[in-house]
């Protein structure tokens, strides 16, 4: 089943064409990666999908439903969660409250000004489950900004998970991490992907090759290759972009 289908996507910033006629499909239950050098338009692609930026043209279908033009919160409520390239959490709140707020978002009564937050038991339960999954259970009472960079990135993944998404968009989930943390994170993403469809963007090609079912390669706003990791790795155009035209 196709969960996300992009067709003919276009976006320009002034005279700079950042995304040019891009097609991409994400199959449910798979890990799809979009790789490309810095400046290829990967983050812009996420910003278009999640409603952070308006499209210039093209279509975005999530669960066969057009979502272009919807607000970011409406898209999130449909079950499409994203992390950011630069860690984006609630820095002054506790780890648990960060994830609890995320879990609360799609619960009935999420905006009740009368019902005590603690009485939304399901939100707390799924928050704790998400924290346990990313291995932050023991740090639940710490204030988020006191966590290490790697832990904050995992916290953000826990938050996106806690919203109960069908599709998880991860924007360079290992950026700024040490080698050890990177390894842990890739293992974690593999585990998450058993239950949730994952779309990753990453500039480090080697990182996602072992993990992904399908890889699309972007350069200068265009998709230059797509296929299995092995197919993509053999592609001469991809080698040229990544290794330079030697």
């Amino acid at each position, binding site marked *: 089943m196709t969960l996300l289908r992009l067709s003919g996507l276009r976006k320009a910033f002034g005279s700079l064409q950042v995304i040019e006629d891009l097609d991409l499909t994400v199959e449910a239950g798979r890990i799809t990666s979009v790789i490309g050098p810095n400046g290829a338009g990967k983050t812009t692609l996420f910003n278009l999908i*999640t409603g*952070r930026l308006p499209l210039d043209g093209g279509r975005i279908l999530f669960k066969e439903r057009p979502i272009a033009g919807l*607000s*970011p*919160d*409406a898209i*999130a*409520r449909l079950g499409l*969660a*994203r992390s*950011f390239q630069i860690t*984006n*959490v*609630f*820095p*002054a*709140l506790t780890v648990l*409250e960060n994830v*609890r*707020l*995320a879990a*609360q*978002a*799609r*619960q009935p*009564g*999420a*905006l*009740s*000004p*009368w*019902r*005590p*937050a*603690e009485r*939304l038991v399901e939100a707390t339960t799924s928050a704790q489950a998400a924290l346990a999954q990313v291995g932050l259970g023991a740090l639940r009472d710490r204030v988020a900004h006191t966590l290490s960079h790697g832990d904050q990135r995992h916290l953000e993944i826990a*938050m996106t998970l806690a*919203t109960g998404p069908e599709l998880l968009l991860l924007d360079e989930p290992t950026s700024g991490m040490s080698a050890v943390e990177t390894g842990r994170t890739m293992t974690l993403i593999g585990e998450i992907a058993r239950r949730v469809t994952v779309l990753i963007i990453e500039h480090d090609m080697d990182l996602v090759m072992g993990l992904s079912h399908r890889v699309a390669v972007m350069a200068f706003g265009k998709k230059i290759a797509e296929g299995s990791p092995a197919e993509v790795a053999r592609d001469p155009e991809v080698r040229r972009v990544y290794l330079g035209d030697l």
Partner: protein
Amino acid sequence: MRRALPAALVLLVLLALPIGAGSLYSDFYLSLAIRVFAFVILLLGFDLLAGYGGLISFGHAMFFGTGAYAAALTLKHLTPSVWAALAVAVVVSAALALVVGFLSIRAREIYFVFLTFAFAQFAYHAVNSWEWAGAANGLPGIPPPSLWIAGRLPVDLDRRAVFYYFALALAGAAFLVARRIVGSAFGRVLVGIRENEERARFLGYDVTRCLRRAFLISGVFAGVGGAVLASFHGFVAPTFYHWSVSGEVLLMALLGGMGTLVGPMAGAAFVIVLGDILSSWLAERWLLVMGLIYVACVLFSPTGFAGIARRLGALRDAAPAERAP
């Protein structure tokens, strides 16, 4: 438990205050306390929006004034029931907050401050020119309200002590409601928006809708505060709408510590009571002393009284541990 004792003491003193009024001290202190209660309700509303939602309004005088005028006009022309006056104040200030919130919440930070200020100035000048609202003279001679409901409870609130308890009960109820809202699912979302609006939005929260709702609740609290003061004084004037009221609210909240509910309430009490004492000693120069207090507070405790209390609490917790071998 640790907070229960000071709270119980404050409540006890407040309950006992009317006993000595007129004999041990002037009746005037009851009037001062009633003014404090009215401002406490206003400050609770302000804190919900500014302290929890992160939106600093510089126009809350407009809701305070609107609640005051709505109550005054109801008491004057419709019924002496204080409940009816409060209900009308709630409805009218809610309607105004709905419109102003809808138009202001598209802006943030200094732009939001200016938008709310502009709307409040507009309201101030409008009230100043409306003949049916008494224009610049305001509305004197509002009949004393009563607790009358459909023929029952014909207790007149014209005695100062009776009104005192009424206003105290109302301020207490407002505090409990505000605390409930702060602890609610919505209250938590509000704090999330204050901490990181973008993250909240990408988790699926309609930030604009949440902030508009907070603005509405905040405006209603402010309106009730105004209604209490107007019913007590039996007089309203455009000064209720004056920008200096909005400024005073902001200073009270800063002094007490925003985002704590108790802090801004304490700030209101402090400014009103100290202002009265200082102005009787120093006449106009009391504002100079008040200014120095504000500066000292911003320099030494930017989190206000609430911050000082937190630090004292932390000291007390730490002290026995240090003495232990």
